[in-house]
């Protein structure tokens, strides 16, 4: 390996990336904007669900019942309606996500000791949000039932409300959330976003950078010169690894300072693991570039081979453990999963090399395979 030639190649590439507006924005602007867009965009927390009320009883009890919903921080009260028809329109226009209809004679029926059904209409468009809403509604409804029961027991047995509560609901669940005490989804999303962005942008940049040379013919400078295959690959891709490593730092700082995610792990370990990860994903781009003939096809292939594993097999949406066996196997074939573990472990759990070395080793192995395969597939004397 002739270090001067590698340097010449790397320096040329570096200058081209910095001077070409398209490449510069792909290198730096795109990852940062992705972090902003997804960081603010993907919120898994369900809060402030807009809803409306149809109170056909207008009694003291119906007001008490409905106030439990109105006062909740999970719901956002939009007002009363007069007719059921209005509810349909409001849900159809996405003005509200659910509505509660209290039937006539609500108080009368309850006081007479008979059960009564309160209707809740929930927008089922987004299953995840729907089930969350349903859970909240059921919980609030339970709370009101317990309240009624407690009041009844207090009155009937002549004991204090505290005693009555203990009698009515003797078991209480006490939950402590580990690693993410406030269950803020952004805490886990910011590290996962790093996984996602660093899986997508380095291969994009790399594949375009190599295929561009193929497309316009400057690759023939390499083919026809005495530069060896290894020198070319190292020199050409070194700048891309450096850029991605700079992005690691930028995204990391954004996760901590913009999205207030806690970082409990070892920064040095995390940085080194991240550099291995971007070297690996740069390798994906390199491999793609050896098959693609045009920049357009390079982009298409990169999208397919990176977005699918990043979304489906990384643990971003569905935990790996809850996948079926075939999917779990597939997840192990992509680098995304390993880095998700490293990122979440470093950010939230504060674990390091000791616990995560298998993941780092998997990424290293992945990197070596990609680069060796690319080296063997790259030829300076081509077939067409």
């Amino acid at each position, binding site marked *: 390996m002739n270090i001067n030639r590698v340097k010449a190649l790397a320096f*040329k590439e570096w200058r081209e990336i910095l001077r070409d507006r398209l490449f510069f924005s792909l290198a730096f602007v795109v990852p940062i904007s992705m972090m902003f867009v997804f960081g603010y965009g993907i919120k898994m927390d369900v809060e402030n669900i807009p809803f409306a009320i149809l109170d056909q009883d207008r009694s003291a009890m119906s007001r008490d019942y409905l106030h439990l919903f109105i006062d909740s921080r999970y719901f956002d009260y939009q007002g009363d309606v007069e007719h059921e028809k209005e509810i349909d329109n409001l849900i159809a226009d996405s003005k509200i996500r659910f509505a509660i209809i209290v039937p006539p004679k609500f108080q009368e029926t309850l006081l007479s000791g008979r059960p009564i059904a309160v209707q809740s209409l929930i927008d089922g468009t987004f299953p995840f949000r729907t089930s969350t809403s349903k859970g909240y509604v059921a919980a609030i409804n339970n709370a009101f039932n317990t309240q009624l029961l407690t009041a009844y027991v207090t009155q009937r047995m002549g004991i204090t409300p505290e005693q009555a509560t203990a009698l009515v609901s003797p078991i209480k669940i006490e939950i402590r959330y580990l690693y993410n005490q406030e269950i803020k989804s952004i805490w886990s999303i910011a590290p996962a976003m790093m996984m996602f962005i660093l899986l997508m942008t380095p291969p994009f940049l790399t594949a375009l950078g190599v295929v561009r040379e193929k497309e316009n013919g400057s690759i023939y*400078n390499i083919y026809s010169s*005495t530069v060896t295959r290894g020198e070319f690959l190292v020199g050409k891709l070194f700048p891309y690894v450096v850029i991605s490593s700079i992005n690691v730092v930028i995204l990391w700082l954004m996760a901590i300072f913009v999205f207030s995610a806690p970082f409990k792990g070892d920064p040095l370990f995390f940085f080194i693991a991240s550099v291995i990860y971007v070297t690996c994903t740069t390798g994906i781009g390199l491999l793609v570039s050896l098959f693609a003939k045009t920049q357009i096809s390079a982009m298409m292939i990169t999208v397919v081979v990176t977005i699918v594993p990043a979304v489906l097999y990384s643990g971003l949406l569905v935990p790996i453990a809850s996948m079926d066996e075939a999917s779990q196997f597939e997840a192990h074939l992509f680098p995304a999963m390993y880095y998700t573990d490293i990122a979440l472990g470093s950010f939230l759990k504060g674990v390091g090399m000791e616990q995560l070395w298998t993941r780092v080793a998997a990424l290293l192995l992945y990197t070596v395979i990609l680069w060796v395969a690319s080296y063997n597939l790259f030829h*300076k004397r081509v077939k067409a």
Partner: protein
Amino acid sequence: MGQPTLVNTVVSEPIVKVQGFSKSYRKKLAVDGVDLAINKGEIYGLIGPDGAGKSTLMKAIAGVLTYDGGQVEVFGEIIDSEAAAEKIKGRIGFMPQGLGQNLYAELSVEENIDFFAQLREVSREQLISRKRKLLAMTRLDKFTNRPMKLLSGGMKQKLGLVCTLIHEPELIILDEPTTGVDPVSRRDFWAILTALLREQNIAALVSTAYMDEATRFQQLSLMYDGKVIAEGEPDQIIAKVPGTLVELIARPQAVALSQLKSIFQQVEAVGAVLRVFVEGQEEEAAIKQVKSLLSGQEVSEIHASQAEMEDAFIALLSQANLTDSETAPSIDTNQASEIDASQKDKLAIEAENLCRDFGDFRAVDQVSFQVRYGEIFGLLGANGAGKSTVFKMLTGILQPTGGEGKVAGQDMLRANQAIKERIGYMSQAFSLYQDMTVLENIRLYARIYAVARKELKQRVDWVIATAGLQGVENRLAGALPMGIRQRLALGCALVHQPKVLFLDEPTSGVDPVGRRRFWDILIQMARVEQVAILVTTHYMSEAEHCDHLALMYAGRIIADATPEQMKEALVKAAGELLEVTTDQPLLALKLIEQAGFEEAALFGKKIHLLAKEPQLVRQQIESIFTENNITLHSISHRHPSLEDVFVYQVMTHENEMARHEY
């Protein structure tokens, strides 16, 4: 090869030996059984149209492409594996096809050169001295800090050459280095190659699609469809097809053309002149035969001369039965009389002081010219001279900053839509729909131009007949060979019977046979249908076909005359063009240059120079040669080409502008 009289010449093995070379892409055979040998100190040419297999052969010799059959030997190394190819790459310089495509757009001129030097491990001192020399030779030394993407086409190509030469290769392989390059840069290019040949005794393999560059080579192969159809020195190849070129002026031209076509295979109208290649006949007999055929017409200025490479090429093709036998477009001479004579001499296009600024940059500066109905007018100039901008203003795509333009009697500024219906426009890229058939394309254009429903069928039939598209009506446009696709594009532009036709670089990359057919149609349109045709081009051979030319340089028209007038003006201003044939061309060229003829240039084994007083110069050269023991074979007159005109005009203007600057 090595003559016994030249003591110092060691009879050496050829640097490149190719035997039985063949290569297929997928199942398509691209090159089939080619043999060639390149010697040291030789510029070897590969001439042929696009798709002839030139690039494939060159890449295989450069060791960057595998091949299927035969053997390629370079510097004694048989190139049959990647490892073998690596061994010779240090001694080769390879420049792929495409204007500046192998360069890095974002890097400056100097950065590009430095990168290639580092890649080739040129030492610092060598780099500095070579860079200085090559930059001066290419006249790029003023632009070292300019990013490559801002260079003109010719400059890019010269920079590409500098980068390819920076490690002083022994063999340089240049794939179509002059395609799309303006004539002045082309001249520079050949001058550099000649100098290298002289100083370093290198070998060069150069491909071109221009037949008129054939005389530049010492040895060449004519390629067509993957095969070599002739090999040897340029004169030898032309001599393979015995015959005479007869040039004449006949009136009416269209009638004479169709009469000649019935007997001779190669007839074409070049401006006012008809060129007839009479195969197998000596000069006098040929003139006699042509004259007897045109007994009814008014014939003038008839004379005979040696055939050119293009005539030989076409004759060789038809001998080898390689020309496709589809029907040539027919010329309907009966219509000629029906044309309203009053149309003639009326102005179809009038440009008056057209100006166009882009920011501070004046792209078009006070351009005025006139085109009559029935006239083919060429707007000639290098890339970036302002041709396209003039075009866009006249077709109403771009608003002029100043001046006026009238097309078909309408003011460009006001009657936009009306004009568009009266003009036909064919762009450089042939705006056809590749996934539609020939017929569908024609119908689509007919509807776009609002051809009446009842006329539709008749117009479509007319286009098919005129453009010679019989038999391919139902084939996809994208699957057609370049020449036919181009005629289809022309047919589409003519479907609504426009009276004015705009053609933007119409025949780039088409083989000579296809190009001649294309011009046949244009001649018919102009002579018979009285259509005014405005053509932009930077191909000199295309310009020769025009009735009238305007030469553009830096946004201005610097010459406006017929091709003949331009050539006469050149002879008046710069002297006669002399061709010197000798046994030691390189040494002779050096001596002639030293004697004060700096513009002298090497064409193959001959030397061209301009002489104001031919008799005096003759004597001068004769005495120089006797002093230095050089045998003079002959000094003959040559007709200057339009390229000579162009180069002279542009150089004169460049020098004038430089004088104003300092």
